[in-house]
Every structure is written in C-alpha cells, then in structure tokens.
C-alpha cells in the first residue's frame, strides 16, 4: 500500500470557494428556471401551501443547478476552447472536474428527494427526468453529435413551467404542455441567433451547431419557421382560458415582434458584417421570454387575488 509522500499541500487539495460552486450551478439559467416554474405553479388551478411552494421552488432551482454542474463536468474540455465559457470554474482552474461531478450528483439526489418527499412524486419524477435529459441526452449525446442538439435539448429548458404546474396540481395538464411548447419552440431561434455570430467558437470546439453544419442561410430559414410557429403559440394561454385578454394582446405583440426581428435576420442574411440583426434578435428573445412569463405571472396572481383576469378572459 502506498502512502502519500507530499508534506505540503500543493497538489490535490481544493482551493474552491462556495462562490465557485455557485457558478457551477449556472445562476442565470437557475433564475430563468425559477421564474418559469413559479409562473407554472401559480397559473395552475388549486391551492399550494406557501411554505411548500417556496421549498418546491428552491428544490427546482437546486435541481437545475445540479444539471448545470453535471454539464460543466462533462463539457470542461470544450468550455476551455470557447471564449464564452473559458471563465467557467473548471477551465479557470477553480474547481476540479471530479468535484463538479460529485457536487452535481449530490445536489441532483437531494433536490429530487426533497421535492418528492415534501411536494409530490410526479414533480420529483419530472425534475429527475429534466436533470437526466439535460445532463445525459443533451450534454453527453446530442450536443456533440447532431445540429438538432439544441432543438431536442431545448426540452430540458422547457420542462420547468410544466414542473411548476405539477407541483400545484399533481398532474400534467394541457396548459402545462402549452407552456412547455412556448419555451421549446423559442429555443432554436434564440440559440441560433447566438450561434450565427459565435460560429468560429463552435467550429474550434467541434460542436455541430446548425450554422456550421447546414449553413447560415438554411439556419436563418429555420429560425423564421420557428418564429412563425411561436407567434400563434404566444396567445395560446389566452385562447385556452388560463390567461386574460390583456395578457393575450400584449403576448400577441411580443410574438409579432419576435417574428419581425427574426424576419430581419432572414432578410439581411448576413450582409451586415457585425451581425447586428442577430445580436438584436438574441437580446430581444431573452426579453420576449421574460416579458411573456411576467405577464402570465401577473395574470395568475391577479386571478388568485381577485378571482378574475386583467380585462377579463375570452
């Protein structure tokens, strides 16, 4: 049996601070997950105890963070190559990849078990599947093998509102599926807008993003198709009766604006070297999702407090 012979701790002893572990959990993604899950939770019919609701949101946030840590563990090699990700804790040398794996696994188990024991097992199952889908299906399989990576992988980011719905009702309703569909259809134009101006990065990392594989013009056409699908989906909550008319009208404006920004990307077709249209679309896509779910959240709270939607329902 060998004995560790170093007397000074230059090798193998971690210098990682708690904030490095927080960075592993992708706090920005966590914020979006919490926000969309909370919206789903409050839009759903029926009551949920406020204490259990807070615990559910924390568990969902930790579950999302755990999948981020697992993603960073597996993608450490390509994160080191891409300018957007070189400052992440593993390529920056703050945390060892194995620590990220352990942290992600422990947090995954803790979040799923907490949600199951304290809220319900359907939501725990959806959270477990979301973590599995993001870490295994997307990160380990799709991301490096197909240009449809973020199309199918986008499902992982689309589950949270459905998860929130399941926390309140213990079921998966059609309304939850619609919220899922909005984020699912939103993901490709959002990501490909970024991919169009980060093509060299993705090339260097050998990630088969759509612009690198199918070409820029094909990507822009596909983005336009997804945006055209997203516009009517934006008003589906109002049409299905779980959002009010005011939210419906504003959502229609958001959907139309998204379509316009995407149309400009398709129309300009890269003639502008700075890719301003792509950058504008990327920025607007983030605003679109935030604004749409904020409207739904306000509507849900209004309905719970007053028993009616803003400007009534259809």
């Amino acid at each position: 049996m060998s004995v560790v012979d170093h007397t000074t701790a230059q090798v193998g002893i971690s210098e990682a601070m708690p904030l490095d572990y927080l960075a592993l959990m992708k706090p920005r993604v966590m914020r979006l997950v919490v926000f969309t899950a909370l919206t789903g939770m409050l839009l759903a019919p029926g009551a949920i105890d406020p204490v259990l609701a807070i615990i559910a949101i924390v568990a969902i946030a930790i579950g999302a963070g755990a999948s981020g840590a697992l993603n960073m563990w597996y993608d450490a090699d390509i994160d080191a190559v891409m300018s957007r990700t070189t400052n992440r804790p593993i390529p920056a040398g703050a945390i060892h990849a194995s620590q990220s794996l352990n942290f992600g696994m422990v947090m995954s188990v803790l979040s799923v078990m907490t949600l199951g024991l304290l809220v319900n097992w359907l939501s725990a199952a959806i959270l477990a599947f979301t973590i599995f889908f993001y870490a295994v299906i997307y990160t380990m399989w799709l991301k490096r093998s197909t240009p449809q990576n973020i199309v199918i992988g986008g499902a992982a980011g689309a589950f949270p509102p459905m998860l929130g719905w399941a926390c309140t009702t213990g079921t998966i309703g059609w309304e939850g599926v619609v919220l899922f569909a909005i984020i699912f259809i939103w993901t490709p134009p959002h990501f490909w807008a970024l991919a169009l101006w980060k093509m060299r990065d993705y090339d260097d990392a050998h990630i088969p993003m759509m612009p690198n594989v199918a070409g820029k013009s094909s990507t822009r056409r596909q983005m336009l198709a997804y945006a055209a699908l997203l516009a009517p989906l934006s008003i589906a909550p109002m049409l299905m009766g779980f959002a009010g008319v005011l939210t419906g009208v504003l959502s229609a404006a958001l959907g139309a604006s998204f379509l316009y920004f995407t149309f400009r990307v398709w129309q300009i077709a890269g003639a502008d070297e700075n890719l301003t249209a792509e950058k504008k679309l990327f920025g607007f896509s983030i605003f679109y999702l935030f604004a749409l779910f904020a409207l739904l959240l306000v509507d849900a709270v209004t309905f719970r407090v007053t028993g009616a939607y803003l400007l009534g329902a259809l």
Partner: protein
Amino acid sequence: MEYGEGKFQEGPGVELTEKQRKARRWRSIAIAFGLLFMVVAFYVASIAKFTPKMLEQQQQQQEQS
C-alpha cells in the same frame, strides 16, 4: 508497511496553504448553512403538510363524540 500499524501518524502530514485553509473553512460554513436549511425546511414543511390533516381528524373525532 501494513495498514493498522499506526505508522501513518508519523511525519508532519499534509500542511494546507493559507488559501486552502481559508477555502476549506468557507466550504465548511456553506455546508453547515446548507444542512441547517435542510433541517429547517423539512421541519417547517412537515408541520405545513400534516397540521391541516391532523386538525381535520381532530374535528371529525369531536363530531363523532
């Protein structure tokens, strides 16, 4: 050298650098707060989950008697 002979205790052992010591202390504090949060969350959630059912049962028993 066999495990269990007590010879692992000899020598100076691993000496942590100041940075490693500080990082370990902060990680320990974070874990402590995490565990504390878990305990409080499970305690409060148990009360929130079971109290309404217990009150309901109590009311039913009172009505029966």
